[in-house]
């Protein structure tokens, strides 16, 4: 605004203040909890592209379909062949589909946080009554819920199908419950890792690649090392190597506590004592992810 102030300001008698009727807001104030809930529900809808353009619905919906279709096929096979059991255990499903789950978290975690960083809208959120921890909690909870919907829906398909096929009720219910606990842990862990990585970079594309790299590469590295340890007959090391990738962490926890069979080479899953270590590492990682996010947003929220 390069307006020149060459002319002298108008003399006193010509200046007057008009009352143009500004009023203060005196309606109800919905407060911090409401703002947090709104942020949560908007982020959760955004994770599936609801309320956004058609283009941004394509990818999450496609991945959701890819997650559910194999479950439906398995159910159909089980019903028609009158099988005694489902072709896959509830706890194994997420591990088999880990590439799809990783792609989902990699595409949606940057979606949830990178735009706010890139367009510098984060401070605007904090001009509302929410605090840093509210923002982080809402985003984390939203992505974890979206992940839980993604991973639990195929289990539900399997469970309903199993009941329709008149498989043993208590057996199936127990397996289903174990599967749900396992995917809940997986959702928390994966979305925590995804958000921490995505919150570091304002570039969406870079965030996607970084999340995939962390999830898939660590699994690739760990399973390579495990296979080599197995070939060397060094089976005692295998469970300890498994501590270093998110997928094998979940595998280990559900092997130790949720009655799953391990996909580690030779089925050499962790013992109960090692399972406790696995569980502690998972919970520690989730807490660390939350802590790092809060720290990050303390900095960028200024």
């Amino acid at each position: 605004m390069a307006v020149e102030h060459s002319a002298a300001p108008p003399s006193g008698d010509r200046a007057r203040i008009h009352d143009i009727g500004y009023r203060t807001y005196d309606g109800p104030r919905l407060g911090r909890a409401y703002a947090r809930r709104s942020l949560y529900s908007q982020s959760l809808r955004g994770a599936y592209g609801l309320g956004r353009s058609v283009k941004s619905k394509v990818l999450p919906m496609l991945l959701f379909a890819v997650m559910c279709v194999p479950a439906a096929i398995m159910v159909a096979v089980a019903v028609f062949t009158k099988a005694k059991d489902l072709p896959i255990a509830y706890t194994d499903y997420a591990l088999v589909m880990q590439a799809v789950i990783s792609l989902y978290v990699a595409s949606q975690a940057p979606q949830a946080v990178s735009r706010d960083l890139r367009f510098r809208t984060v401070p605007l959120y904090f001009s509302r009554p929410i605090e840093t921890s509210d923002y982080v909690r809402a985003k984390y909870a939203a992505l974890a819920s979206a992940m839980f919907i993604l991973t639990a829906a195929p289990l539900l398909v399997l469970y309903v199908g199993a009941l329709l096929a008149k498989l043993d009720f208590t057996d199936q219910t127990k397996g289903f419950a174990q599967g749900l606990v396992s995917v809940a842990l997986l959702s928390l862990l994966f979305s925590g890792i995804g958000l921490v990585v995505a919150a570091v970079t304002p570039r969406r594309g870079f965030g996607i690649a970084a999340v995939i790299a962390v999830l898939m590469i660590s699994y690739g590295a760990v399973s390579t090392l495990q296979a080599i340890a197995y070939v060397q007959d060094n089976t005692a090391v295998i469970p300890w190597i498994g501590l270093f990738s998110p997928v094998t962490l979940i595998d280990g926890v559900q092997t130790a506590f949720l009655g799953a069979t391990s996909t580690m080479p030779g089925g050499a899953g962790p013992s109960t004592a090692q399972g406790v270590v696995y569980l502690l590492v998972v919970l520690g990682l989730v807490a660390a992810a939350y802590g790092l996010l809060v720290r990050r947003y303390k900095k960028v929220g200024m």
Partner: protein
Amino acid sequence: MYDPTVARLTYRALLGRRRALVLGALPLLLIVIAVAVRALAGADDQTAANVLGGFALATMVPIIGVIAGTGAIGPEIDDGSVVYLLSKPVKRSTIIFTKLIVAIASTMAFSAVPTLIAGLILNGNGQQIAVAYTVAALVASIAYAALFLLLGTASRHAVVFGLVYALVWETLFGSLVPGARTLSVQQWALAVAHEVAGGDLVTSDVGLPAATVLLVLVTVAATWYAGQKLRALTIAGEE
């Protein structure tokens, strides 16, 4: 055909600030794994081929290719700043070619060099394995960079599609459907590596002549089409 200023800007966009560190993390991991495997298992040709083939060529090279290929042009199109580049009196084909060169150079530097080092650590280039996989990584870098550069100009979700191709198509379908293997950059690169190494530790499903023709064809076609895309680029607003 090659514009140094465009190249400088692209290098800065790709490797500037902390991005080079992220790109460098993957090769570093490969070398750490190589050291760990050597310490655990000793020098073994089959193990070396497994690690280099399964981890370096199948996972690391495509991911670095995706980051470098789409990163060379994607972010600029994404935030709209590409218009300032396009409005300069530089031919669009020159822009694409320069960005391709930069993407290829970055992919090679961050994938082929560590592959060679890891190979040397694993078995000291026994049976030419280290050199063979390095050649494969070099060849694959060119094709991946061209392919993913095209994806970067064609789609806003280039990174996701690139990863779907690299991880789902090449890894998953490649191991289930034999036909998918003929249409895979990884296998073409392996065919070249097979020629270098000889022996049966490095094998490919594609013959060398077919692989060479397909590699050249894909690289040239992808680069040409990316140039065409850039000629008629419409800047989309934020969704």
